[in-house]
Structures are given as C-alpha cells and as structure tokens.
C-alpha cells in the first residue's frame, strides 16, 4: 500500500513539476516568441486565452509606431487573434501624436479605439475617459508581482486606470570595458589626478565624458565620444533634464514637492538646484557626438547601443539594445544609478546642503488603457492581460527595440537575464540598480497634473534655448518658471495642487 502511495505521489509531483514544460511544448511550437519559457500557466496564459471565443468581434488598438511598443502590440495582437478568433486592428501612431489621437475622440465622446497606448503621465488627462481596470485583473497573480512603484504609476488615488505593461526609470549606462580597463584607469589618473570609476556625481560624469571625448578609445578606427543624451526639444528631453536635476533639487529634508512647492504652488524649476543641473547640461553639449544636441531617444539608443559613447542615461532600451547578441558592445556595458551631487538645494533655508545626494527618477513609461466608451471592454482587458502575461513579458523584456522594461519583482532576478546570454556580473549590476531604485526613499515621480504637456513643453523649450546658447541657464529657467505661473493661472492653482499632491505623497513615501 505504502509503495502504491509513494508511486502515486511521485506521479502527481512529476505532473505538477513538468506541467509548465508540457504547456511550453504545446504553445511554443505554435508561437516561437515564447520558445525560451514556453507558456507559463496563469489567468491570461496562452492556454487560458485559447479557451476564450471572440469570433466575430473586432478589437481596435491605437499604439506607437514600430518597433518601440508598436511591434509587441502587433505581435501580441496577432497571437491573441489566433487564440481567440477575434479580429484585431492595430493602428500605429508617432509618439508625439499619441496624446491627441486619443484625446480628440475622447473629448468628442467617441471611441474609435478600444485600447489606447500612451505614456503614464497622460493619466490625469485621460483617466476620466478610461475604464478602471476591473478587480478581477487587479487581483490576478501576474498583477500581484508588479512592484508598488509601478502600481502607483498606473493608478490615480488608488484606482488603477492603466494596465501595467512596462516599467520605466532613468539610470546610468556606461562602457564597462573602458571604466574597468586598468590601462585607462592609469592614464586617466595621470592626466587628471582622479580615479576612473563608475561616476557617482554629475561632475565626475562630466569630467570623464570630457576626457573620453573625440578620440578612438575602443580601437575600431572611429572616434568615440563622451555621452549620448536626449537633447532634442520635442523628443522627451524634459525627462532627461529632470533626471539631471533630481540630485541637485530633490532634497529629502524638504518634502512637499520637487516641481512645485505644494503649499504655495510656486514653481521650483528656476531654483539654484535646477540651474546647476542645466549649467552641467549646457557643458555636456561639448562632449556629445557631433549633432548630439539634436539627439532624440532613437538617436541616443543608436549612439550608445552602437558603441559611439562612453556614457548614456535614459530608459532601459539603450542598455538592453547594447546587450543583445548582435550588438558590437554586447556584454561590455554596465548599469548604475543616476549620478548624484555633492550638494542639494534646500528651499526652506534658501541655501545649499553640503553632502552627497542621489535621487532616482521614475520617469513615465508606456501605459495603456481601455476606453470607457468601448463596446468590447472585456476583450480589451483580456488582450492587455495576455500582452503582459508571464511568458510574453519574459520574452519581451529581452528585446531592446520592443521598449518593454522590467516592472515585476521577478524581473529583478539575475537568472532572467543570464538565461538570455547576459554575463552574470552585468546582469547583477542591472538588477541591483533597478532594485536599489525601488528601495530608495528619495524618489522623483513624473509630473502628472492637468496641463502636464504644457508644463513639460515650456520647460523643454527653455532648456533647449539654453543648450542652443540662445539663453543662459538662469534666464531660460526663469522664462520657464514664468510660463509655469501662466499655465497655473489658466488651469487653476487648486486643480493642479490637488493632482500634484497625489505624486508628492508618493515621493514623500506616504503612499
């Protein structure tokens, strides 16, 4: 009897252990995208979706242009259609037009798209037109693994409006083969009297970038440069500026706002902290590649990912692109938190607080929601759930051009990355960087208030003028602050304050 029991237990155990592999065999043959993991059981797995029947129904999606987010949207749409019988129409739209393309029909009371992709900082403007994510999805296992920071980014006042499909933050990327090279360390020490190491402050970043600018330091016959940064005015450059400003302006001793003083709603963007950051950034125009002042995100990814620069900082994409097997700098890069500063502005005492300060920027990322007026809400949420299921997610995060980045606790495990060919120490530095950012108590979250676009555009225009030499950093930021005051008056200070308080609570670790 005991033997029979043992056999039955062993059989059941074997079935349980190997059942994912069984799914993998079945589904990865049909869908090679998930060949590395196979299907992973869950509420929105391939197996689960195959049991749904949406034959005769059409799902309409507006997403970004191919490849970033556009390619995975289309790929998962095709898979979803095969599994459920639905017809899925995917429209691709350039990044700059995503907001308006959804907003115009939203305001006209129409729903030409069931699903709209955009950026997470659209949430305040879009939420009144989006269907909150139903409880059934919020309580799913795959959602429980999403980090609290990204749950916060996708939610407003505790209600989730955006379905998490991507996680974003800015961090430093550097050429490990140069920074760790003993010969260059010696050479740099002789030339500057300083250590060549992963920069911990923006000043060190600038000094190293300037030193490694304009000569062939990797022996490929081409000149290399110091840094690739997103400096093009209408191409997300304001996010890069906030990243550079956080260390100088996000003072843990002065809670109550990074962009505005929550009490008075006075814009803080022209205080000495931001001015110092912009001054550094103007200096950076000297160590970017020729034309670097016009680099958008795509250029930055291509430049650093193609081995043209020593440093870069922005979203994960450039790092993941650099780590792909076909990259010329595969396994030659490292990740670290954004540099900090040796002083931070204290707006209460109106003076600099001396000492090291660092503040990670949880910049907005890709976000997606279901239109409140959609007639196919259930199918729409099923699609999003399928998009972000464990198998798809694991496959997507390893493809740099997809723009899908870590936002789940499981993503911070080294094995996930070594399985796709990353060196263990690089994978470790990457997951450590991301994990440290999650644990930081001095974080900056994106501005998510009514008129976000106007605020960011005003800042970007002013910063661009400074980078182009049209205005000094102080004059440029004074101009931006004046425009922020005008926008505040138009939108209403109380409206902005109410919305801004939600983000400030997250920054002040009250949520």
């Amino acid at each position: 009897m005991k033997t029979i029991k043992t056999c039955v237990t062993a059989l059941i155990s074997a079935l349980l252990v190997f059942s994912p592999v069984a799914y993998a065999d079945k589904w990865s043959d049909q869908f090679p995208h998930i060949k590395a993991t196979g299907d992973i059981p869950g509420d929105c797995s391939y197996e689960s979706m195959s049991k749904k029947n949406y034959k005769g129904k059409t799902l309409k999606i507006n997403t970004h242009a191919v490849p970033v987010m556009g390619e995975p949207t289309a790929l998962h749409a095709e898979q979803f259609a095969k599994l459920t019988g639905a017809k899925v129409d995917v429209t691709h739209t350039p990044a700059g037009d995503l907001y308006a393309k959804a907003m115009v029909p939203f305001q006209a009371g129409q729903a030409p798209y069931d699903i709209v992709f955009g950026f997470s900082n659209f949430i305040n403007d879009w939420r009144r037109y989006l269907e909150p994510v139903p409880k059934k999805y919020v309580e799913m296992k795959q959602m429980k693994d999403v980090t609290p920071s990204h749950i916060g980014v996708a939610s407003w006042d505790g209600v989730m409006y955006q379905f998490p499909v991507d996680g974003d933050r800015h961090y430093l990327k550097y050429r490990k083969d140069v920074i760790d090279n003993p010969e260059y360390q010696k050479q740099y020490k002789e030339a500057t009297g300083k250590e060549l190491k992963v920069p911990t402050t923006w000043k060190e970043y600038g000094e190293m970038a300037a030193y490694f600018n304009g000569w062939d330091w990797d022996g490929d016959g081409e000149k290399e440069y110091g840094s690739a940064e997103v400096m093009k005015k209408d191409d997300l450059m304001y996010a890069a500026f906030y990243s550079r400003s956080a260390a100088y302006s996000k003072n843990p001793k002065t809670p109550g706002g990074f962009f505005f003083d929550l009490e008075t709603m006075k814009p803080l963007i022209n205080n000495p902290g931001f001015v110092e950051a912009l001054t550094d950034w103007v200096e950076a125009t000297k160590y970017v590649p020729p034309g670097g002042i016009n680099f958008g995100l795509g250029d930055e990814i291509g430049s650093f990912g193609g081995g043209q620069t020593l440093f870069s900082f922005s979203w994960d994409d450039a790092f993941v692109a650099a780590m792909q097997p076909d990259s010329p700098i595969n396994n030659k890069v490292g990740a670290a938190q954004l540099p900090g500063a040796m002083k931070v502005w204290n707006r209460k005492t109106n003076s600099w607080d001396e000492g090291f300060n660092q503040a990670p920027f949880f910049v907005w990322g890709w976000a997606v929601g279901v239109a409140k007026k959609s007639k196919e809400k259930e199918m729409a949420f099923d699609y999003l759930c399928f998009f972000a299921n464990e198998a798809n997610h694991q496959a997507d995060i390893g493809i740099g051009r997809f723009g899908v980045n870590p936002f789940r606790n499981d993503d911070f495990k080294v094995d996930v990355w070594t399985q796709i060919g990353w060196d263990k120490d690089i994978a470790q530095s990457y997951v450590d960087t991301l994990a440290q950012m999650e644990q930081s108590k001095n974080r900056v979250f994106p501005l998510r208030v009514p008129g976000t676009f106007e605020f960011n555009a005003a800042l970007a225009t002013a910063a661009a003028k400074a980078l182009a030499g049209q205005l000094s950093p102080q004059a440029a930021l004074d101009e931006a602050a004046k425009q922020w005051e005008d926008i505040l008056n138009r939108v209403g200070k109380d409206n902005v304050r109410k919305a801004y308080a939600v983000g400030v609570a997250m920054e002040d670790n009250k949520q």
Partner: protein
Amino acid sequence: MNFKHKFVFLFPGLFVLIGILIFPIIFTIRLSLSGWNSYTPEMNFIGITNYIRLFTDDPRFWESFFRLSFLSVTTVILQYVIGFALAMMVWREIKFKRFFRVIFLVPMMTTPVIMTVIWRTFFHESLGPVNDLLGGLGVKPILWLSDPVIAKFTVIIVEVWQWTPFMFLLLLAGLLSLPKEPFLAAAIDGASPFRKFVYVTFPLMAPISIGAIIIRLIEASKIMDTVFVLTSGGPGTATETSSFYIYIKGLREFQMGYAATLSFTYLVIMIISLTIIAKVLTKLMIKE
C-alpha cells in the same frame, strides 16, 4: 427668366463654398474665443482673452513669424532665380532638352517627408555622408542641424531643392507661351542676349513671375513638414516657424482654443501681407 431660378443654380456652388470655406473659418473664429484645452474640453466663451495673450504675452509666436518671413522670402527668391535660369536653359535648343526638363522636375515629384528624412541623414553631423565628404577634403565637420544659424540655411537648402522645380515648371510654361515677334524685332535691332533678357524676356515674363512668386510664397509660408522632420524647430527654437508653433500649441499641448487664435491671426496677417507683396511686385516688375 424668373429671377429666383438663378439662385437655384447658384445654390449647389454656394452650399459647397459655405461648407468647405466659410464654415471652417467661422468655426475657427468661435474656437479662438474659447479656452478649449485638455482640462477644459468645451466650447466655453472667454472673449478675447486668447487674443490679448497673443499680442501681449507670446513673443515666441512673433519670433516664429519673423523667422518664417526670412525663410520663405529667402527660399522663394532663390527658387525664382534658379528656376528661371534652368527654364531659360531648356527653353533654348540644347541637346537632351527633354531629358533635362524631366530630370529638373524629379525633386518636386518626390514625397517631401521622405526626402527630408533622406536630407536629414545626409546632414547628420556624425553619421551623415556630407560631413564625411567634407572631412575627406580636410574641412572640419559643419554643424548642419545643431548650429542655430546654419540650421536655418539647411532648411533653406532642402526647401530650395524640393520646390525649385515648381518654379521652373511655371516659368518654362511662361517662356514657351511668349510671342516670337518681340524677340525677332530685338534680333533685327542687334540686341545682345543680356539686353534681350532685360528688355524683352524679363518684362514679358513679369505677370507669370508675379503669379509664380505669390503661389510659392503662399506655399512657403506654410512650411511645416521640412522643419518637423529636419530639425523639429531646433536647436532651441532657431528654426521654429509659425505653422510648426501652431501645431505644437494645438496638437502637442492640446490648447485648441489658443491654437485657433494663432491660426486665425496668422490667416489675417498672411492675407494682408500677400496682398501688399503682390501690389509691390506688380509695381516693380510691370511697367506701363
């Protein structure tokens, strides 16, 4: 004939005119008096607040307008001079005349956005072939798109390349339609080619030239795609034009009411200035 019948025949044309011209203008005017934006999505009435903001607190619009004036006048003058020269060249009996006529038209037949992407690649400061070629000749890399002054001339180069063929086409059609007698008379009088051009060809071409210049000025004043793709108005705001600025305010920042104010003001300014330009050109180029 019953007088009322005239109106019956007029009605379809009038209806179309109202539908496609009058209604959009009236709607734009009404929108310009509202504060429609992302957080107040309604046609509320705020009077002339937007107009006050434009005339008292928006130097960026006026800067973009003067920049546009510089870009459009410069490009149209260059297009006219080059287009006229090319038209004169193929107007005469030369070898491969038909081939040249077709080849000169090619830039105009290409898609502006695609061609601008190609030009942007050419002028890319670190990866583009133009600086590579110049480097081969020992010339330092030129900041085609990142220097505030040079970027304006880069926009001009692309615009001139794209639209000179249009000028060439109109002027060639004009040259081909000129009467032969004045040229015969000038030849009998022994006029030199230069005098023939100054006293015969140019005056006879004046009405066509004015038409061509005005058409191109109208088009050039709407310059948007080239700036959008080539420089995005940068570096800073160095190449931002009125239409690009209106696009930013309307479709990027979603300030629909204010963008309508900018559009309507811009329309009025363009109607007035083009009317004045046409009168001045007529006075200068057509002698009684």
